[in-house]
């Protein structure tokens, strides 16, 4: 063994290298306060290691970035842990960087001959911030997308070069494939290479000038090995424990969040994302920007931060004067206090803002939903996961309803999105439309002229309402039984997913009901058409009532002769007037009919919806 090591040593000189690394003199002996630099090197190593492995499963393009991160996070064994460690180490590293910088300034470790090394350190700080910023976009989720848009738009307001710089960074006029390839090249190539180069110099200069001992006569001198190495190792272990704690927090406290790093819904430039916030360590800049009214953002976003960086940069020079060092310490402490205050302010404002809470809740709902859809047997289409949400009735239906229908209609008394409205409804409540329960309410003399049905429409005193209030009210028991058959038959026309079993079970009853609707005894066919053309029909066609086709056609044009014709009460022709396209009308129809992908079909309808 020894001979082999000697052989190796003669050819590589490794013993001297190890000796050089381990036997650095520490005036005053090993101390805990010297561990910060080592923890930062540790964090960087963790990022390089985990980043390299993430790289092997990541695919930078706007149709595969979210998808590959989803796959890492949810499908690959241990992917959530790997991604979680990478994500939270970045957070922890930003804290440690600030601590390291503060210590250097307070201890005056930037003074001659260490000025240049101080500047290297500042360079490393900026590079790490750059890594954080570029990394935030790579999952291509709503959160990273909208936050990074803000950052690159700020870049665009830099005088002269801004617009060109912005275009170069995002690889074109808009966000797309090239934004990801460029951000990824920056994040995994350019910036890490710069970090390594600067870090080697930083450590080399540190060794050249030696440690800035706090009080060198406190204790006898010691070598770096083993006492300080042990301190450093324990500190790194504490950092690692913190990171693992943050990764496992949702599991330890049952918060219901994903383990590891969050993954929001896929980026979609056409979907609002009011929950957009930068990563927490950039929140202070986000809050700071709010103080600058339109046209003056450049002060908050560029001029003042650049000026502050410049002063920090000049600290070694300023520190030469007698009061200079005190100025430096005072300035950095007040900057830190300012940053903490602004971060705190941003967080409290969000906490007290109900609109933001709703936005966060909705963002989480969409994130959960898209993951459920991605796990469905159909999986993620090649066009990307963003289409899953765009084509999902459960996601789009409520939004479309709130925007287009909730002006008059209600869904369970609300606007579809779960918000209460101040105005009272002026058209029917469509929750459970065409279901047996809904129809039973419509045919109930007590309820037909309530605001839940026709109460706020011109049909309040129409033929149907009169028929229900007079004739149905006086129905004999036998007629009531027949009415129930009619309700079952009419509801079966809709072929609702939630009634599939009931419809199958009651096939005989439904057949009877159908005959009753078409016949004269129950008087439906006096006004309605049912499965055979009737030119005298003056009320909506009941053929396929509530089916996807019926509902889509109705929404497209309720004033069509097949439906209300000239009797139509205020409802716009959403299709004929091109307010909504077929795709959107189909989504509303599917949603109203409760027809969407459901990962757990055994749940009753009430528990399927998000509200």
């Amino acid at each position, binding site marked *: 063994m020894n001979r082999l090591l000697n052989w190796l040593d003669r050819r590589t000189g490794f013993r001297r290298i190890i000796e050089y690394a381990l036997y650095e003199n520490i005036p005053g002996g090993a101390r805990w306060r010297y561990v910060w630099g080592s923890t930062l090197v540790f964090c960087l190593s963790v990022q390089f290691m985990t980043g390299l492995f993430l790289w092997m499963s990541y695919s930078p393009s706007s149709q595969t970035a979210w998808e590959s991160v989803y*796959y890492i996070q949810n499908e*690959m064994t241990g992917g959530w842990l*790997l991604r979680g460690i990478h994500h939270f180490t970045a957070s922890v590293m930003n804290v440690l960087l600030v601590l390291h910088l503060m210590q250097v300034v307070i201890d005056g470790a930037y003074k001659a001959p260490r000025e240049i090394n101080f500047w290297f350190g500042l360079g490393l700080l900026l590079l790490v911030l750059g890594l954080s910023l570029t990394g935030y976009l790579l999952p291509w989720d709503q959160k990273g997308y909208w936050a990074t848009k803000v950052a690159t738009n700020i870049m665009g307001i830099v005088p002269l070069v801004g617009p060109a710089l912005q275009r170069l960074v995002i690889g074109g006029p808009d966000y797309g494939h090239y934004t990801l390839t460029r951000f990824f090249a920056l994040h995994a190539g350019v910036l890490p290479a710069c970090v390594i180069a600067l870090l080697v110099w930083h450590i080399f200069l540190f060794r050249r000038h030696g440690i800035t001992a706090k009080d060198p006569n406190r204790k*006898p001198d010691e070598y770096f090995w*083993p006492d300080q*190495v042990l301190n450093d190792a324990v500190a790194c272990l504490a950092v690692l424990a913190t990171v693992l704690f943050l990764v496992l927090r949702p599991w330890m406290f049952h918060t219901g969040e994903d383990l590891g790093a969050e993954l929001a819904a896929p980026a979609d430039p056409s979907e609002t994302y009011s929950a957009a916030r930068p990563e927490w360590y950039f929140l202070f800049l986000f809050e700071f920007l709010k103080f600058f009214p339109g046209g003056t953002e450049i002060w908050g976003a560029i001029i003042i931060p650049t000026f502050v960086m410049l002063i920090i940069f000049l600290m070694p020079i300023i520190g030469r004067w007698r009061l200079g060092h005190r100025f430096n310490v005072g300035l950095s402490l007040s900057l830190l206090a300012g940053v903490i205050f602004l971060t705190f302010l941003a967080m409290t404002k969000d906490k007290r803002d109900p609109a933001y809470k709703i936005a966060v809740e909705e963002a989480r709902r969409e994130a959960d939903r898209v993951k459920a859809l991605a796990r469905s047997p159909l*999986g*993620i289409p090649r066009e990307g996961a963003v289409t899953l949400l765009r084509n999902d009735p459960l996601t789009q239906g409520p939004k479309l309803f709130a925007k287009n229908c909730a002006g008059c209609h209600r869904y369970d008394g609300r606007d579809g999105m779960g918000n209460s409205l101040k105005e009272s409804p002026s058209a029917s409540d469509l929750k459970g439309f065409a279901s047996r329960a809904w129809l039973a309410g419509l045919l109930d003399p007590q309820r037909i002229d309530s605001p839940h049905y026709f109460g706020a429409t011109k049909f309040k005193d129409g033929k149907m309402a009169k028929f229900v209030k007079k004739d149905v009210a006086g129905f004999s028991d036998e007629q009531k039984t027949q009415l129930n058959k009619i309700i079952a038959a009419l509801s079966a026309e809709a072929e609702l997913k939630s009634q599939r079993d009931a419809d199958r079970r009651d096939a005989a009853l439904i057949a009877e009901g159908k005959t009753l609707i078409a016949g004269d005894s129950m008087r439906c066919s006096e006004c309605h058409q049912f499965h055979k053309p009737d030119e005298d029909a003056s009320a909506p066609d009941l053929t396929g009532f509530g089916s996807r086709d019926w509902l889509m056609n109705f929404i497209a044009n309720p004033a069509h002769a097949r439906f209300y014709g000239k009797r139509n009460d205020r409802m716009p022709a959403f299709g004929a007037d091109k307010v909504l396209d077929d795709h959107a009308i189909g989504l509303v129809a599917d949603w109203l009919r409760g027809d969407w992908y459901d990962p757990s079909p055994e749940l009753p309808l009430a528990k399927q919806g998000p509200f």
Partner: protein
Amino acid sequence: METRDVPPQPARRNFLKKASAVFIGALTALVPTLSGLIVFLDPLRRKSQDSDAVLIASLSALPEDGVPRKFSVIAGHNDAWNHMPRVPVGAVYLRRIGDKSVQAFNVICPHAGCFVDYLPAIKNYHCPCHNSSFALDGSIADPKSPSPRGLDELPVEIRNENEIWVKFQNFRAGVRERIPV
């Protein structure tokens, strides 16, 4: 830097310190590395997709004289996060042997995985990469062929008189046995 004397320390205490420094250091390095390795090794845990028989062509599309013809295999395919219900997943050579019977070969050369051509002039399958050559029945035609086995035959089923259904499969290259991948 001036260097000052470092006082000698008791060896036993030093050993404990050194051992714990090395142990803790190794532990902190191990956790991120292992978390990456587990993900890296994930493909080993994935099972290959088991495909059902797929409809390739109709019997009438094959020449009566037993000359092979190449067909694409269109089937469902999972590629990591994408599930594609109908995409080309490979190709087969089909040839008639008798009236109602068909033989199917995977077009992939069992030697190193190149796409094998059929050369009508010599009535042989020929691999353009390393010159393996296979007879019409898939067996090795030229003993100098580097391929360890003949072309991989696939199970064929004739349904509804005229439909050729093939259970498509790929096999490990470079070995004598036919081992599905």
